[in-house]
């Protein structure tokens, strides 16, 4: 049961990361088009998404079980990315927010803007936790290898 859930969260976090990345990028582009700013200014905002994606890919390629088999980490990833998607969708479709339709941009930048700092905190936090869980796995591997050596000896 635990493995099934873990597999579900593990697969879901990739899909959610892509969706969260796409929606956030869309809102940032709309915001920059409105302000007639250079698209280069969007890049620093998207770095945490890219870092996390790279770490996920590294986890997948090197089969780092400390991360991939960690149901708590995978669940937290899904939750965090779902929140980002939820916020982005509310910024676009929650018509009860009066500034959503007032200026005719179709996105409530005022609302989304309040979340940008939280998004960065959560994504960088997940990246740091991911790196730390990788070390843990290495340590376990070393312990397992050393115990095998002692048994052979």
């Amino acid at each position, binding site marked *: 049961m635990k493995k099934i859930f873990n597999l579900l969260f593990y697969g879901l976090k990739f899909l959610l990361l892509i969706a969260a990345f796409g929606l956030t990028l869309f809102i940032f582009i709309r915001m920059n088009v409105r302000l007639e700013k250079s698209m280069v200014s969007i890049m620093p905002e998207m770095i945490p998404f890219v870092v996390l994606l790279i770490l996920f890919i590294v986890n997948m390629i090197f089969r780092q079980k400390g991360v991939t088999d960690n149901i*708590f*980490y995978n*669940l*937290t990833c899904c*939750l*965090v990315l*779902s*929140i980002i998607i*939820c*916020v982005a969708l*509310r910024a676009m479709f*929650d*018509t*009860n*927010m*009066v*500034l*959503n339709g007032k200026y005719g941009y179709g996105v*409530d930048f*005022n*609302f989304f803007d*309040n*979340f940008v700092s*939280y998004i960065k*905190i*959560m994504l960088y*936090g*997940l990246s*740091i*936790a991911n790196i*730390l*869980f990788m*070390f*843990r796995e*290495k*340590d376990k591997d070393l312990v397992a290898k050393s115990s095998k050596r002692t048994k052979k000896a």
Partner: protein
Amino acid sequence: MKKILLEYANIFAYTLTGLLFGLAFFLLFINFYHMQELATVVDVKAYNETNKAEVLNKVGIIKNNINVYDQLSYNGSLNIYGLNTVQLKLQDCIDIIESNDMMKYLDLDEIGIQDSYNFTIDFKNKILNDCLVMQIKSMFNTDTVATLPNFNVIKPYIDLDLDNLIGSTSYVQNNIENSDHYYFSTDTNRTNFFDLVDDSYVDVMNNYQSALDLLVEISNWYRNVVVGG
């Protein structure tokens, strides 16, 4: 030593993940609450019926007051240009009040945050700007109206009332616009302090009634001027 450090790293990773888990849940709940609060619908049927009756009553008083003057039959000594100006300006205000754009709010049975906001904006644009500023305030700055009796008595009230109405309405408008920002509210807060939908609507409706009271006062002054002169 290395093992201890790695154990600490593991503990730190779990702690960090736990904190992020908590933060994510906090944001989830706060979003849900915010969404729910903005989707609030308030029943204002009885309240609007009372206010509509009051509005129609006040409009009736203003109409009666300004109809005491007829340029063709007027034999008084006062400046007819001044009297004509006041009558026309008050008539313009009545046309605005009786327009569908304003009356539609008095026919609503239920209101949401958008209705409160639209009512605030329409009241500000049509009643405060188009009527009170463009018609009434400008009228009291004309030389012909300044020659009418008791002009100096009524003019300060208009300036003072108008400033209060603009300030109060702007507060409600800013408050609703700021509700898009992320904030935490509670039921206690909503009950005891300020319900965004209901209190905003009531606040603007009170301003609307105050604006009408001001127009009634001006029309009473006008009636006294015409009858007295």
